[in-house]
């Protein structure tokens, strides 16, 4: 029993949270349609967090993530307003984001600058570019319905956004757990020097990880815009800490100390479920914060049950 709690503590925490909320509000929270809806609400956060997972697999941070989300939203609307067709606009946004990611990754790995400060700097630059493109204003209007459908409606009974999450989680899971690329990333993250001496190319692999993260962040910017029909130059600001919270929750969930895809998805789900459940129960914002913090703390502490002291 304690073994089980240790191994899957955070997953158990998620299930426990769902059960408690379902009992507290069987009709509203526990309904199938709400549970499905939570998967939609968690999608954007989860995708940013999945990007962060890839970067954390190589043992780095990417703080430019939030800026790139904002950039993605603003730039796609900017291009759409210029009359660029939606698919091309999306492609261009992702391409520029890939470039941003490549710069961050190269600086971090080639010159061994601490990723925390390097990506804070690149993030600030990207934020400036975003403000410049948008003139600091929220951009809206002229967004074709076809574009907006990317994040609206349902397919085969599930919300379109949920499909995005499923697809991306699957792709990145293959990337990290099945492909050689993933093994290399984890080797670098586990022991950079050992990986290097064993012939793993540090610069190109680290750079690639940052590119993946940047592209996913920009995609979230695009999807967010499609979802809400407008783009704000600070729209991504809320994702940074929450996304990393999801990754760190996930690190305690499965493989101890290693960012991993299933864990991140569980982490994002915990955050989404808490927000959803507490709002449905009509808990006031102040109390929501206190409860959220307490639940997260308990979720990471549960693994420590029966563990030795420091």
């Amino acid at each position, binding site marked *: 029993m304690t073994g089980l709690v240790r191994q899957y503590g955070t997953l158990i925490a998620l299930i426990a949270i769902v059960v408690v909320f379902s009992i507290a509000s069987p009709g509203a929270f526990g309904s199938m349609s709400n549970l499905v809806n939570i998967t939609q609400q968690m999608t954007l956060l989860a995708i940013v967090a999945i990007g962060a997972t890839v970067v954390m697999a190589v043992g780095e941070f990417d703080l430019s993530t939030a800026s790139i989300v904002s950039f993605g939203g603003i730039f796609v609307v900017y291009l759409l307003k210029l009359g660029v067709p939606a698919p091309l606009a999306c492609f261009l946004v992702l391409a520029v984001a890939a470039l941003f990611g490549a710069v961050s990754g190269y600086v971090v790995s080639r010159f061994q600058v601490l990723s925390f400060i390097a990506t804070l700097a690149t993030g600030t630059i990207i934020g400036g570019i975003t403000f410049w493109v948008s003139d600091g204003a929220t951009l809206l209007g002229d967004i074709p319905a076809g574009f907006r459908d990317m994040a609206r409606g349902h397919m085969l009974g599930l919300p379109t956004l949920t499909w995005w999450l499923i697809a991306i989680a699957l792709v990145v899971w293959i990337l990290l757990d*099945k*492909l*050689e*690329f*993933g*093994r*290399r990333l*984890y*080797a670098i*993250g*586990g*022991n950079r*020097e*050992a*990986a*290097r*001496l*064993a*012939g*793993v*190319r540090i610069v190109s692999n680290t750079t690639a990880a940052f590119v993946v993260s940047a592209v996913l962040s920009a995609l979230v910017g695009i999807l967010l815009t499609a979802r809400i029909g407008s783009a704000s130059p600070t729209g991504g600001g809320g994702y940074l800490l929450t996304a990393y919270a999801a990754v760190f929750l996930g690190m305690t969930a499965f493989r101890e*100390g*290693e960012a991993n895809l299933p864990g991140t998805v569980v982490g994002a789900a915990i955050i989404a479920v808490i927000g959803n459940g507490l709002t449905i129960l009509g808990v006031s914002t102040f109390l929501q914060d206190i409860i959220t913090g307490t639940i997260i703390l308990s979720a990471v502490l549960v693994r420590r049950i029966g563990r030795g002291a420091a």
Partner: protein
Amino acid sequence: MLLEIKGLEKRFGGARALAGANLSVAAGSVHGLIGENGAGKSTLIKTLSGLVRPDAGDIRVDGAPIAISSVREAEALGFRFIHQELSLVPQFDAVENAFVGRAYPKRGPFIDRAAMRRAVAATAAAIAPDLPLDVPAGRLTTGQKQLVEIIRALMNEPARLVVMDEPTASLSEGEARRLHEAVRALAARGVAVIYISHRLDEVAEICDAFTVLRNGATAGTGVMQGTTRADLVRMMSGHEEITSGRPSVPAVGKPVLEVRDLPFGQRGNTLSLTVGEGEILGLYGLVGAGRSSLMKMIWGARRTEGGTVFLDGHVLKPGDIHARIRRGGAYVPEDRRHEGLVTARSIAENVAISDLSRVRSHPALPVTSRGRLAARAEDIRTQLSVKMGSPWALPLTLSGGNQQKLLFGRWFGGRIRLLILDEPTRGVDVGAKAEIHAIVRRIAAEGAAVLMTTSDMDELLALSHRVAVFANGEITARLEGEAITPPRIIDAAFHHETRREPAA
């Protein structure tokens, strides 16, 4: 008796690390504690330092039973430890490292750095006069780190018991000799010393008594006088020692590795060397002489300011480790914890990481197959007789010698043209050492050039066809055949004007 341990038992999950270990140590004696890798030596020591709490058994100090529950309690009893795994704070220099967890000399409320330095320098003068005291530990060589640990344990207030867990694993003759003198001096002052080592000759030389552990239990104990090396080995392993003897001179083939005019050392000299097919070139030198640096330069892991390295006639680009591997290069680093193993990943992944294309599920797809990963690990297990559980276990659950074999296993399966070995048997027991030596010989016999560094004189003599001796970044002697004798090697190692103290 200063210390008496009876019937000590300890389990880690399913593994039995100690199963009735006994040990008695008298004040003023040097007590050798020996046993194969995984016999439980370090675990026994950790029960004394309060890091491990035994499941059963009792520990008596001066005849009184005692329970040690923390490092601080152990220190309060006058116990000092040099643990097997180097544990220094990388940013701290030798002086600061020596005082971690200790009472600092103070001037008023402030720490007195000058006094700290004086205290450390006094101890260092006897043990390691050449050790730089103001370089952060992260930049020291493995051997230098080891010296810092030793200084830390010997420094300052009077100890009653000093425990040394493989203090000489990466020291060469000169440093080891100074340590031996210090150990004798301690004993003469009435301090008890527990000395753990896989270098049995060293144990025979400096210990008064010994205890042998086998599978967690005491397999024998006695006084050193009249006990032979063969006796010790029999007690440790249950069978006779397999001696490897001197190498036969190979039919040296065409040159495989050629290093030309590589700038080396502080004084702008350059270095050239050649290793041919089937040949083992051994490098020897004192701690910090620059052997590891040279190997890293050849491997492309450290910057060079010029010079050329050829492998089978092809110029190797500096920094491109991948290209060396493609051309049949292989490298076993000195520090398996920090430079060798990715400790958070499984054994299977650790042995596959240098060439993942070998474990593809389909040759054309960059997809790693779990089945093939496991198969490769199993293959290496049988080829190198690695004692391990599942291929998916983490490498740190293995004992030191088996971890070391994994680093060799990494290069198996491909054609090895150049094998670079930096301290290939550090911390490895005699049995496993012989196995590793056999592996190295086999690889050489298959036509690889082997470049090896070792601090262990016996190993150097056992394996090398030729020997190059380093002192302060220069080759001071190149020896071949009958000329390879310990006196000549040691003489060359100390042959340098900047060395303050000639060989004793």
